[in-house]
């Protein structure tokens, strides 16, 4: 007799509503496409508010305040400037704002994908969708590794500044080979060490056993997921067809 067992392990909930990683990925793609393709105001408002809601949901308070201030603040400023007719005077400022605003939702959604979603959630989704391990493991590692690498790059540049070497476009044009050697080689060596540690950690977690793996995190789509996906696709269709 096999009795239905209730799950014994509970995970600390990091967010108010559980949203599956697949929804996050879809919204990430849709929001970057909408922001890049259409300069329409409505799309910006919808994408911005969805990203802000995601940040609030993930309890990333600092991020959500900054995001809301930057995104909606610049939008409002532009509206005010249009109303008062001072748009031309500050046109350069608004161009900069535009560029920043286009990439903000993408960055915010990326932050949620990389920092606020656990690796086991991703693996559960990929397992359910029958995506091979080769892609699943490397995709998760890639998502997690990019923030680490940005830190490494900043540290290396700081270390070079100590030696009075400032690598920018001009320096690169003058000494291309040397600047590659000075930036890329330390990065490769330091990240090589991190990679060794990561694979050792994976071995201890039993990723390498070669058997079929089971997951403890269950993958389900909740009503909130369907709602978000439908809103995203409708916005996309409306903006692509209507404007």
């Amino acid at each position, binding site marked *: 007799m096999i009795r239905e067992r209730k799950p014994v392990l509970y995970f600390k909930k990091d967010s108010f509503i559980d949203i599956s990683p697949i929804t996050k990925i879809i919204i990430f*793609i849709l929001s*970057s*496409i909408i922001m*890049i*393709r259409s*300069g329409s105001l409505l799309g910006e408002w919808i994408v911005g508010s969805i990203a802000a809601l995601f940040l609030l949901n993930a309890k990333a308070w600092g991020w959500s305040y900054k995001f809301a201030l930057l995104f909606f603040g610049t939008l409002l400023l532009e509206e005010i400037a249009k109303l008062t007719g001072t748009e031309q005077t500050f046109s350069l400022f608004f*161009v900069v704002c*535009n*560029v920043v605003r*286009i990439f903000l939702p993408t960055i915010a959604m990326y932050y949620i994908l990389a920092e606020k979603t656990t690796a086991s959630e991703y693996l559960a989704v990929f397992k359910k969708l029958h995506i091979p*391990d*080769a*892609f699943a*493991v*490397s*995709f*998760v*590692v*890639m998502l997690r*590794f*990019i923030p*680490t*690498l*940005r830190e490494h*790059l900043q540290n290396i540049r700081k270390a070079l500044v100590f030696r009075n070497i400032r690598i*920018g*476009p001009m320096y*690169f044009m003058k000494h*291309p*080979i040397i600047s*590659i*050697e000075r930036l*890329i*080689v330390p*990065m*490769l*060596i330091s*990240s*090589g060490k*991190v*990679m060794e540690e*990561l*694979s050792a950690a*994976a*071995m201890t977690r039993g*990723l*390498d056993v070669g058997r079929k793996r089971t997951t403890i995190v269950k993958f389900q789509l909740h009503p909130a997921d369907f709602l978000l996906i439908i809103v995203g696709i409708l916005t996309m269709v409306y903006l692509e067809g209507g404007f």
Partner: protein
Amino acid sequence: MKKKMNTKDYIFAGAFAALYIVILLAAVMLFGFNPIIYLMTPLIAGIILGPVFILYISKVPKKGAILILAILTGLVMSSYSIIPLVIAIAVGILAELVLTNRKGNIKVKNVIAYSIFNICLVGPFTMLLFARDQFMQTSADYYGQDYVDRISALTPDWILLVLVGLAIIGGLIGATLGNKLNKKHFEQAGIV
């Protein structure tokens, strides 16, 4: 050398894909504001990324390694349309074919494989051919009309061929540089 990849190799693949993408994005951000240099991206980024690729394929000398890197980078580059992903996968398979037999002069084979793989950097530029108006509209929103005028003067339809050529040249230089750096730094440090 035809062993299957294991989990350790998948981790290496993901990490190197992250390296590839971060360096690519940094290069594009540094050089993207000047139209001429922006069009030279396949050459410049190809040279910078050469050492990364060479270290990757000498660290994970197995079947399928290049294909995973190609899929991951293609996914990141295909924010406009699906075409960059298709190009990246095709190029990845071609590079795999070059490196199926790793006997003989491995360095020359690495150079050939990388100069083929580097064509995937042309992917985002296919927009100039298939969605020209939209590209110009987007650039006008970002950088202003002046930038668009200069870009459209610089890009007739045959520019893609030039870009592919630049990518191949960049790949040749980058891979040669990568081989040298590999010998100078990584083999001595015992990383490979």
